[in-house]
């Protein structure tokens, strides 16, 4: 299971941030583990640049298993 972003909050220090996150974001057993990160340490890719940033992968179809045609008699591969 991955950690996923669920929201933000204010706190004086990491310990308080974890407790506040537990109080606000896991009220209905939504998680078994919490990560808190100060927002100043988060760096994000520019959505406006998304096309050019992720484009290189689009035409490299040889990265996918389906690109490789093997005889059907070969099992377990």
């Amino acid at each position, binding site marked *: 299971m991955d950690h996923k972003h*669920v*929201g*933000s*909050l*204010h706190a*004086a*220090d990491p310990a*308080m941030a974890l407790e506040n996150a537990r109080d*606000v974001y896991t*009220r209905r057993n939504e998680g078994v583990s919490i990560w808190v990160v100060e927002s100043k340490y988060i760096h994000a890719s520019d959505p406006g640049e998304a096309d050019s940033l992720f484009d290189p992968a689009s035409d490299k179809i040889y990265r996918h298993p389906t690109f490789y045609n093997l005889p059907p008699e070969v099992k377990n591969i």
Partner: protein
Amino acid sequence: MLPEANWITRAPSLRRKAALLAKVQDEAGHGLYLYSAAETLGVSRDEMYEQLHTGKAKYSSIFNYPTLTWADIGAIGWLVDGAAIMNQVPLCRASYGPYARAMVRICKEESFHQRQGFEIMLTLSRGTPEQKRLAQDALNRWWWPTLMMFGPKDDDSPNSAQSMRWKIKRFSNDELRQKFVDITADQAAFLGLTIPDDHLSLDPGTGHYRIGDIDWNEFKEVLGGNGPCNRQRLEDRKKAWDEGVWVREAAAAHAQKKQAGKMQAA
């Protein structure tokens, strides 16, 4: 939070008390999600509190009414949260990501709120004649303020045009208000309670309920700060803020002390 917290110490049973505590806690969380979403637009939490405390920031008209009896808690959960759900479900697909995502989380929590309220109304309306009277009285006082939650009539709504153009608001005030009335009228009938509107009638042609005139003067007065509880609500907020200064200062001082201790050790 404030109208409902009023009855936590006087909930009639442990079950009701636990449910109400949980609801009020949820509402605090909802405030947090919305303040967090607003912060993404470049305003600080402190600035927003300042705006709230000086009366500059508006908030929903509904919070300016008093909770006079336990039955009010049932009426609020059923009607006020019901109206909020009606408004907020479409907002889950608003065009502004942080706001829409806050709404998704809020909506998940609201349905417990409404069911909690309806269950209270059901218990009261099936109880003693006095209990039924309490439920009817609460409905009488909360019905019209709830309808006002949807905002002015479409023709009189100055902010709607821009919000709809920006795809933040997706349905008009009147559309949502109509949907709410249609659904809630049936629920009231099930409870055996009477909605306090002599003009409420089902139009067989449209399948919608027609309602009487809303007192827009009351709405204007309440939004302008002259509702039954406006002053008290703001005073409570300011008191909580002022009396919490030492907690915030202590937390910050403690954090700093720990940080300095770590630097020394390293």
